[in-house]
């Protein structure tokens, strides 16, 4: 009897010691691969900045447990598919890297997804394209697909504002924007709104004189502009200069939710409606604290993409920690944990982030309006 108790206590003492030895500082290696340069830099660089701040804070707060930390590095996908393919293949070959937060968007993100599923390497692309999700179990998206975001602005158009005849201006050479536009069009058509005209511009265009004249002299009771912020502001400026009826409501989607929009548009973009996941300055404690610390660190206020990067990293961090706690700190473990994340506190949308069973992210959107040169929540 005594011998047994002795053996038991000796074994358990040994086990505890071993466990203590095993539980030394863990480094969780995650690579933030975003478009720091190239066409998607205005998204990628900002997402990276937000994600870095989040990772630093989480490390400081000891989020990953005693002595553990997330070791992150930032790489550039350069909005270039060749570069991305090489980089991601190399990262996949590096056994220590648990997952990649990125690549950013479009075909670059798809390339990343393809490699991820080929090499069994988890990636969380910034884009919202369902094709990434459908490509395989190892590729995730960070932002919500058009089917989740556009209803917010489509309902506002058809129901809250009760508009009936819309002119649509969209971007024709970027598939992400095209997808958003198509979704909006089908939603408002379902709600009985008539689409009076449809025009596509190229991302690099700035001469909207003919388009502006055409719309200003047409009969519609609303104008929807599905372009990036700077270009959208420019279109609105030229629309007003061409004599568009000042009482015509102008709407956009979440690409407008950026300080650039107000900067470039000035007085012309007053009263424009849009959707945004981020209310500048924050609209609850967590988001206000983020807004403050981001501005303190970077020297400029956070925009939608900074906030998304920050939020995305929260989700990544939770996934990594969950995998570690489940004793399954492998790529597969991280992949599983990521897909199961629910109700993670974030600074965007309705402030909780969840993946559903199909690995589609949900965190909601707010309808905003430009008032006195700032984004405010739009009247219900």
């Amino acid at each position: 009897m005594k011998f047994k108790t002795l053996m038991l206590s000796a074994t358990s003492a040994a086990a505890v010691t071993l466990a203590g030895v095993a539980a030394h500082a863990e480094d969780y290696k995650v690579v933030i691969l975003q478009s720091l340069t190239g066409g998607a830099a205005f998204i990628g660089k900002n997402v990276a900045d937000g994600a870095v701040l989040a990772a630093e804070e989480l490390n400081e707060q000891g989020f990953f447990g005693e002595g553990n930390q997330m070791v992150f590095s930032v790489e550039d996908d350069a909005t270039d598919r060749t570069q991305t393919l090489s980089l991601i293949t190399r990262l996949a070959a590096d056994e220590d890297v648990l997952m990649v937060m990125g690549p950013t968007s479009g075909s670059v993100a798809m390339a990343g997804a393809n490699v991820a599923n080929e090499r069994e390497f988890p990636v969380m692309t910034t884009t919202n394209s369902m094709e990434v999700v459908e490509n395989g179990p190892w590729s995730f998206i960070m932002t919500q697909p058009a089917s989740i975001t556009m209803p917010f602005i489509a309902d506002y158009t058809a129901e809250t504002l009760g508009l009936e005849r819309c002119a649509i201006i969209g971007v024709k050479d970027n598939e992400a924007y095209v997808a958003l536009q198509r979704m909006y069009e089908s939603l408002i058509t379902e709600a009985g709104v008539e689409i009076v005209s449809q025009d596509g511009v190229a991302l690099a265009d700035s001469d909207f004189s003919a388009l502006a004249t055409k719309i200003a002299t047409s009969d519609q009771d609303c104008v929807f502009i599905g372009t990036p912020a700077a270009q959208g502001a420019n279109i609105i400026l030229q629309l007003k200069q061409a004599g568009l009826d000042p009482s015509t409501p102008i709407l956009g989607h979440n690409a407008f939710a950026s300080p650039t929009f107000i900067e470039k548009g000035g007085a012309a973009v007053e009263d424009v409606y849009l959707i945004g996941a981020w209310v500048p300055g924050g609209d609850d404690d967590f988001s206000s604290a983020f807004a403050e610390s981001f501005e303190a660190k970077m020297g400029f206020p956070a925009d939608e993409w900074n906030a998304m990067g920050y939020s995305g990293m929260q989700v990544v961090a939770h996934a990594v920690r969950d995998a570690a706690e489940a004793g399954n700190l492998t790529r597969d473990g991280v992949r599983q944990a990521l897909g199961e994340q629910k109700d993670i506190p974030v600074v965007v949308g309705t402030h909780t982030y969840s993946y559903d069973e199909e690995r589609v992210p949900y965190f909601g959107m707010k309808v905003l309006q430009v008032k006195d040169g700032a984004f405010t929540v739009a009247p219900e």
Partner: protein
Amino acid sequence: MIQFYYAYQPIIDFFLLSVGFGYSQQIALRAGVFSIATAGFAALGSYCVAILATKTGVPIFLTVILGTALAAAVGGLLALPLARLRGAFQAIATLAFVQIILSLLLYGEGFTGGALGIVGIPREVNTWILLIVVGLTMYVMWNIGRSGMGRVFNALRQEESVASSLGVNIGKYHIIAFIISGAVGGLFGGLQSLYTFQIEPHNYGFAFIVNVLTVVILGGRTTLLGPIMGALIMAILPEIARPLAEYRQAVNGVILILVITFLPNGVGDEIVFWFRRRKQARQQQQRASEKEARDAVS
């Protein structure tokens, strides 16, 4: 070795594709045609293969052949109007051709996917296939170079009036050169789409034109080694010049200016010419010493 391959496979594969496009660009320049149409041929081949592969049940092998044939046919057609133009106007015309193809690809949404392009293309091409096809292309190019056709191309490039006074039908040879340029461009365009999972019009725009042109200028416009050297340097450059990554375009520009001014034949051609000169010099020396030997005896 396998690790190296895994990590660097994409670079090797893109290098091989680059070499292929380089030959397409080179053959046109070799025949004295001021063409930058390869981007258009590549787009045609690429989209043809992609659409057939994703929307129909045509066997992959056949799609590539069809893509190549389409681009070759368009190349031949393109040569007809081009034959009446000279120099800079040919360049403008081929540039216009590429622009037209691009706008049509963007516009034909239902068919070509518009801005989104074609996605979900099965990856049927790997390094071995690329190596074999590049090898075959090189074999064809080598044979052309050594044949009568090759000599005519050289004549057309260097002094057209001489060729014409010798009774050469310039138009016919331009058409042949364009058909080959189109075929090679379309072939590798098709292979590219079977490699990168997804294609969009933007892939075949100005950046493509500049890259292919740089490969041939840097490597050489006349020899077999040309596009290989050019593609090799362009493939390694982003890796070596990592710190300069943001200035990649500028580096590309500096290379173009330096090479065309100081090494106008290109690195690859210069190497080949050097070897040829050495061989010639040695042959001359041998003949001279043989002559001496004979003179000594007589």
